[in-house]
């Protein structure tokens, strides 16, 4: 947790013309560290991802990767520094086998005719997934036959294998049910235990709290601060996210008919 940060932002911000989409956000991620980015819709989460992933460069503040200030010109530039983003609409091709998806764009070849080294890729895909605790019967099955959580996990395993030092996860649990979310949360811990820095973007404090080491709360395009786990409870976090007083009022209103639900 106290290791040198792999990725750091210092009062970073982004304006699209006159529109200030994000400003004054500071946070760090170190190896083996999970930073959760929380915020309601429109709080600035996706703008922050786009800066970190190299989709849009920042317009104010500083972005440091491995201690050096950088401005990413493209997603490729971020990837080259080991910063991998796993988007909510996963980069997988449903009809292709798991192992072909795993190595897509970075296939291993063998021999003078650059034949695909299928045996090695299937074997590697199998062992790499097993390392993340994903046990598949068959890496030849189309990835579309996996559950949403499993697919998300394959994408994370792929990022780990291809040398990511930081994985940015964009709302990985948003479209998933309770069980599947649990699966993904477990893989986030796996990735952390393998020594990766994890940036976990979510609007669900119940998903963030169990896995996060520190929590960056965003509201109205700016930061409410970074809270270490020791310094904030789940209830406090939820209250902060929803804007305190507003939520309290809402809670009262909802509690009016006492225990009509269990």
């Amino acid at each position, binding site marked *: 947790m106290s290791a040198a940060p792999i990725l750091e932002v210092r009062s970073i911000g982004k304006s699209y013309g006159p529109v200030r989409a994000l400003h004054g956000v500071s946070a760090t991620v170190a190896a083996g560290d999970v930073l959760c980015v929380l915020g309601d819709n429109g709080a600035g989460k996706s703008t922050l991802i786009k800066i970190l992933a190299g989709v849009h460069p920042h317009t104010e503040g500083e972005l440091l990767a491995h201690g050096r200030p950088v401005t990413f010109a493209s997603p490729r530039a971020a990837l080259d520094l080991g910063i991998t983003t796993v988007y909510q609409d996963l980069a997988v*091709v*449903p009809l292709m086998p798991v192992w072909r998806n795993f190595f897509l764009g*970075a296939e291993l*070849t063998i021999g003078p005719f*650059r034949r*695909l080294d299928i045996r090695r890729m299937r074997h590697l895909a199998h062992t790499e997934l097993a390392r993340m605790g994903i046990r598949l019967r*068959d890496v*030849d099955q189309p990835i*579309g*036959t996996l559950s949403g959580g499993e697919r998300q996990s394959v994408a994370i395993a792929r990022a780990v294998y291809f040398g990511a030092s930081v994985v940015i996860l964009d709302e990985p649990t948003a479209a998933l049910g309770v069980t599947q979310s649990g699966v993904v949360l477990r893989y986030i811990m796996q990735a952390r235990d393998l020594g990766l820095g994890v940036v976990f973007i979510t609007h669900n404090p119940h998903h963030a709290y169990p896995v996060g080491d520190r929590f960056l709360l965003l509201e109205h395009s700016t930061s409410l601060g970074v809270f270490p786990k020791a310094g904030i409870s789940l209830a406090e976090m939820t209250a902060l996210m929803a804007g305190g007083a507003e939520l309290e009022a809402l809670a009262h209103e909802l509690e009016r008919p006492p225990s009509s639900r269990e």
Partner: protein
Amino acid sequence: MTRPAASAAPTTTGPSAQDAPTARHPVRALLRRPELGALVAALGVFVFFSLTNSVFLSPAGVSTWLYSSSLFGIMAVAVALLMIGGEFDLSAGAMTGTTGLLVGIMTTQWGLNVWVAMLVALAIALTIGAANALIVVKTGLPSFIVTLATFFILQGLNLAVTKLITGSVVIQGMNQVPFFDTVKILFGSTIPVFGLDLKVAVLWWFAVIALATWVLLRTRSGNWIVAVGGDQPAARQLGVPVLKVKLSLFMTTAGAGWLVGMLMLFDVSTVQATTGIGQEFIYIICAVVGGSLLTGGYGSAAGAALGALIYGMTLQGIVFAQWDNNWLKAFLGVMLLLAVLVNLSVRKRVGARA
């Protein structure tokens, strides 16, 4: 019979065979192949015509339907690759006419060397293919509409230019052109194989199938073709060069059109300005019957070849049996419908838990 992998696998998969979960189950692997349905159908058609008329299995009969299948097959394989990559090419049929006419005009009318004429025709075909690809990728328009336009342009030019230059809609006298006989060895000869007088086109067809299958299953490009057709944004995110893949695919289809154009030209030494018109849909049907999805991302070269074989056998089988030729179209429609229904179930099975 549920787990023969443990005993059968070591010889084929070597060191990784201990890995029971990754060992391929041969039966399941076969059932997962896209061309399985076409294989069954091809066998059915073969047996049907073998039993219903005597000419079908005679050496002359076999050579005839193999030759017919090969001309459709070469195009169907190229079109299948393109469809797996997520695009259509409706100009593929007209291209077989355009290339033949170009060579015919350049040699018989302008006296150009036949080899040079063939290279020029190939260059023009590839350029048209590249233009199709560039327009599709740069504008994001559906290839269906872009190549429909190319199809009409080619169809119109084939007739108009041929009439303008030769005054008729047929080019004849190719066999008077110097070196015609040399080129004919490559594209128009007949080779005796096991008592069959096999047209050389059939060998070209087999070569095209082998090459396309290799590319699709064993090369990075093949992986990229499937990925681009299956989910283009995902493929792009992972660094697959989408434009390069589509350029190669459209140029391959155009190149195949040139090959078939040459095969027909040097077989009969004449070419009509209407050659290939209306066949673009046959190629697509062959690819679909062979298990390729209309939506891209799934299919096989061998499957498309089997689709063409089914078409060729039926086309000639009906002629041999001296039935009304119109049955062919009805049969084709039924095959297409069945194939689409089978493909739909494949897609549903895979996408069910999305």
